[in-house]
């Protein structure tokens, strides 16, 4: 394809939706900062730069073929030295491919294109490099956690259990209780704060609160736990205080800024025409927000809240400080230690009794259940966001 027969189509792309431009406008981004939505692939195939190569272009099929050749060669070399390992082969393949594509590219296409190909190879390697720990971790959790993924794990507690057996029913219930309480606190506060920021806030106070929300997202979770502990210890005058409420407050501190940020984004996407139409009909401001703005953005809000819950449900450090752990159910949220799934996993992993395998297995099963819950929540959130998405910019 030559540049001549491809129209330079900036702004006339069929999927360039005006709503998203308005959304960008509403979110305070000027259009030139926001960029035009659309494919990020270059619309115009770059012309071949003049270089020192022999003037050809590498056929598109060459890269995969070269990759296969390098992989085969790497495996062969490693076997020849009887030092085969999967990561060794992957590493050697990446290395030989990057070198080979540079050499071939430099000879055929010239140095500049060869550098381009090397960078393409490097960023792909970076992506694969990040996937390796994720896959390894998930595989470990599944293979180690599957052993105890039985009904007893979900129905029994650790009361009276010294070695094998037992379960995490109390911890699962505790996690649901504490996270539920945290959500009860942070969802109303988060939504109302976001409404204030988008619909009412002006001037330096708005700037300050936006900034503080940003900073609050970065609070270390253990500091939130210490805060909840210090708050309850000071107010109740009991330095050894442990309760479900303390844990819930710690989680709420972590969750609220995430809720605010995502609700804020969603409210900004609501077109102003809707608000203006409602005002023009004489509807009071608060009813406009409650009946027009919120229902319009409800999908995104629910999605944002789901992801915020997913973020805090795996928090361990603050709960370790505020709740501790116990062996049985504790339905009281106002006094006494409460077990939660992450702390349960940590405790089983660290304080191994006899036989140690039983404790490690329980820890991994708890970890697996936790990962499943978090990923399920994330998936639900993404699905809701996808289904209700008014515009997608990228």
């Amino acid at each position, binding site marked *: 394809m030559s540049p001549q027969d491809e129209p330079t189509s*900036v702004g006339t792309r069929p999927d360039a939706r005006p709503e998203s431009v308005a959304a960008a406008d509403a979110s305070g981004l000027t259009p030139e900062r926001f*960029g035009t939505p659309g494919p990020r692939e270059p619309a115009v195939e770059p012309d071949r730069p003049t270089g020192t190569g022999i003037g050809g272009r590498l056929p598109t099929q060459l890269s995969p073929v070269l990759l296969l050749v390098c992989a085969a060669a790497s495996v062969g070399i490693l076997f020849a030295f009887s030092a085969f390992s999967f990561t060794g082969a992957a590493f050697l393949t990446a290395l030989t491919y990057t070198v080979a594509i540079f050499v071939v590219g430099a000879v055929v296409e010239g140095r500049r294109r060869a550098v381009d190909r090397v960078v393409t190879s490097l960023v792909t390697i970076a992506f694969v490099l990040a996937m390796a720990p994720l896959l390894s971790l998930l595989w470990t959790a599944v293979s180690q956690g599957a052993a105890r993924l039985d009904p007893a794990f979900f129905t029994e507690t650790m009361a009276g259990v010294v070695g094998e057996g037992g379960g995490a029913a109390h911890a699962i219930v505790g996690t649901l209780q504490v996270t539920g309480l945290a959500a009860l606190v942070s969802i109303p506060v988060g939504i109302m704060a976001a409404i204030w920021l988008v619909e*009412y806030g002006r001037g330096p106070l708005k700037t300050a609160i936006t900034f503080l929300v940003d900073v609050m*997202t970065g609070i*270390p979770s253990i500091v939130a736990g210490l805060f909840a502990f210090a708050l309850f210890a000071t107010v109740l005058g009991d330095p050894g205080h442990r309760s479900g409420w303390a844990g819930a407050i710690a989680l709420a501190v972590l969750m609220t800024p995430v809720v605010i940020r995502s609700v804020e984004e969603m409210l900004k996407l609501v077109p102003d*025409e809707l608000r203006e139409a409602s005002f023009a009909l004489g509807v009071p401001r608060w009813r406009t927000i409650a009946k027009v703005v919120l229902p319009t953005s409800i999908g995104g809000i629910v999605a944002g809240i789901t992801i915020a819950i997913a973020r805090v449900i795996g928090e361990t450090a603050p709960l*370790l*400080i505020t709740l501790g752990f116990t062996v049985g159910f504790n339905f009281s949220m106002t006094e006494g230690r409460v077990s939660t799934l992450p702390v349960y996993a940590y405790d089983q992993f660290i304080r191994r009794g006899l036989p140690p395998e039983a404790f490690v297995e329980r820890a991994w099963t708890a970890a697996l259940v936790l990962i499943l819950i978090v990923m399920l929540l994330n998936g639900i959130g993404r699905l809701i966001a996808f289904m209700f998405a008014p515009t997608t910019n990228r």
Partner: protein
Amino acid sequence: MTTETRSAPESAAPPPPGQKAPVRPGDRIFSGVALAAALTILVTLAGVALFLFVRGYPGFTADEEEVGASGFIGLVLPLLFGTIWVSALALLFAAPVAIGIALYISHFAPRRVARTFGYVVDLLAAVPSVIFGFWGITVLAPYLVPGFVWLQENLGFIPLFAGPVANSGKVMLTTGLVLGVMILPIMTSVCREVFLQTPRLHEEAALALGATRWEMIRMAVLPYGRSGIISGAMLGLGRALGETLAVTIILSVVPGTITFNLLSSQNPSTIPANIALNFPEATGIGVAVLVATGLVLFVLTFFVNYLARLVAARGFSGAAG
């Protein structure tokens, strides 16, 4: 949808004086509640500082026999060193990879799968910290030990790799690598956002001048995204500073150590890991000392996050979580 669309707060502002709208009690109550919710943020942050100070104050002034080290400073300095050192390592490992992934997703990956790839990277953020700790100690540490031995034998003359290598693999380098993996998602998402915001016209102008894709990225995307990259790195650093249980589980520590040695079993602890390890059993002045170190951590992360936002203040606010 017209170009006259104004941003929400502006056009939703009350009508100008002269044609005063009637003030309804419903409006008063609603806006009052919203304002109260917004002020809760301010109050909470102030409360964090206040209550940590109240509970931690006895810790600052605790003397030697109560703390065990040479006073509070003697206790907190090695911890502070460990926190910053391990976070710097994590940043060192994560930054190049994060920039690479962000570029891959924004400019290299096939468009149809790029969004999915972004979600997959975000999955890393969904894994709770404690599970990274399990994985680091069970899988990664034993896996890395032969590499550590090689490093010590061949590069042992560099103090970083002086060893002796801990056979458990519970060393600074392992911890730094795990923390690096953990902060990848946040850095990647910030970098990706800002790379995607590069003006298309800049990119196409570069391509029209005959630049290759990499040259276009070097000329248009990276200069435009520089503040985003720095801000993403700072946010990642903030996360690493506060990471708790992964460090508690993986790192083998000797209280009071200050060393750059990456491979030995005698390492400084970090502030959050030290709190998580000792808090459940602490009483009296011990609790106060731990809360005081927590306040130091809070101030440190607040400062780092503040710098990150300051750098990003070009109207770009990424990374909600």
